[in-house]
């Protein structure tokens, strides 16, 4: 990680949008998903590859505020099945599933009647799962609704990918050593300050480096 493109990447990392703005994007996706389907709740799980768990990343509706950061196994239960198999699924009468009902009650105090779940993937990388809980029963269910959910999942996957890329870049910028990390930290400092003197100093440095 010492070539020129890494320095450019590091500089870009320092200027990345904040964690908050990415969170706002994901929150907006679950809010809109909930609105479109007239659902009681919607949530996004992110796959934590290091611990191999699914983590609540955004929640709209029931459980909002309490669930962020909560972790569940990555390959059991309905969300785990959706993640591992890559298949969207819609289930009603969930309260009939004794294990699901018990776990949902323990985690959130809220046991939904129905659930739509779709994997979030970008190219060949699995990122997580988007869920919509207790959609409106006013209209008959159709394949068009799954198509709509998949469209939303694409948007959520892009948001999640940006969030993960930004997090990795930020780790590099904040904890790394060597020239790349210095450039990243410098870019981040410049991004946050309006110090024109510092900018002028760097411009002078740029001119010097060009002479070398």
């Amino acid at each position, binding site marked *: 990680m010492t070539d020129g493109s890494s320095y450019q990447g590091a500089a870009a990392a320092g200027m990345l949008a904040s964690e908050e703005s990415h969170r706002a994007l994901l929150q907006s996706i679950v809010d809109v998903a909930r609105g479109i389907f007239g659902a009681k709740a919607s949530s996004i799980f992110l796959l934590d590859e290091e611990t191999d768990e699914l983590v609540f990343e955004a929640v709209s509706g029931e459980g909002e505020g309490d669930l962020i950061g909560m972790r569940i196994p990555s390959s059991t239960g*309905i969300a785990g099945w959706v993640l591992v198999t890559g298949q969207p699924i819609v289930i009603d009468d969930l309260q009939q599933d004794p294990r699901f009902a018990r776990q949902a009650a323990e985690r959130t105090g809220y046991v939904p009647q129905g659930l739509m779940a779709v994997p979030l993937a970008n190219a060949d990388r*699995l990122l997580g799962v988007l869920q919509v809980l207790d959609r409106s029963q006013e209209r008959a269910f159709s394949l068009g609704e799954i198509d709509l959910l998949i469209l939303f999942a694409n948007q959520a996957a892009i948001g999640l990918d940006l969030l993960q890329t930004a997090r990795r870049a930020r780790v590099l910028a904040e904890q790394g050593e060597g020239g790349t990390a210095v450039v990243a930290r410098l870019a981040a400092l410049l991004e946050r300050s309006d110090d024109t003197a510092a900018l002028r100093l760097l411009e002078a440095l740029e001119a010097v480096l060009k002479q070398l």
Partner: protein
Amino acid sequence: MSDRVIPAWSLTAEAATSIGIPAEWPDRVSREWAIGGATGEGIDVCILDSGVDGTHPLVGGVESAVAIVLDGDETIVVPDEVGDVCGHGTACAGIVRLLAPACRIHSVRVLGEGNTGSADLILGGLRHAIEQRFEVINLSLSTTKRKFAEMLHELADSAYFNGTVLVASAHNMPVESYPWRFSSVISVGSHEGTDSLEWYANPNPPVEFFARGIDLDVAWYGGSTLRATGNSFAAPHIAAVSALVLSKHPGLTPFQLKSVLYLTASNTGGIE
């Protein structure tokens, strides 16, 4: 032909007279000819999924149940002591049992070991199922991991040439996934109908057939039943019909079976 030692990629004039294939095909392959009175008896159907709860009344027992687990970098086959880790495999088994009541159901569980090694488990499970020479393997799952595509392709082809029918649910996500796209696999998407014996041949592959996949009452974990929707429930319908055809016409190759499914589809005049 069996005593021939050179590879059979050519046909001598002498051999041409000796490879007659006995098959009694009717003038018109109809539903009645294909599955009329069939029960799936004598056919082994494998559910490669989250495990199967054999005690569920809608499943009515499983013939065998193994789990694929990780042992270091390898996958190994062990007796399944856990059963279904989700409910989904039980749902698929229930659909197969409903349509092909006399078939033998086998469970190969490939879920429950975390996501990280999941593609290895699917690959290991498929290899095991093909080695068992089950007539039908239902795969209501896929992997997006490209590095496994080539190995899955080889496995799918070996199944095809060894007389094992792979039925896989199509993936309606805008990402490449496997193995349902391979032509040696029968891929299935959903239609909006409510008849379990309604299926359509798709003139625009890679999805080759559409079967019932929405608003199904399915068996689930813990003896329960749920209402469920997804392509993953369409595949076991075609797996079950395949078992019916094979029980009535033993020895059909996957190529012949796919032709029968095509000729008896709801949109090809297969229903008289």
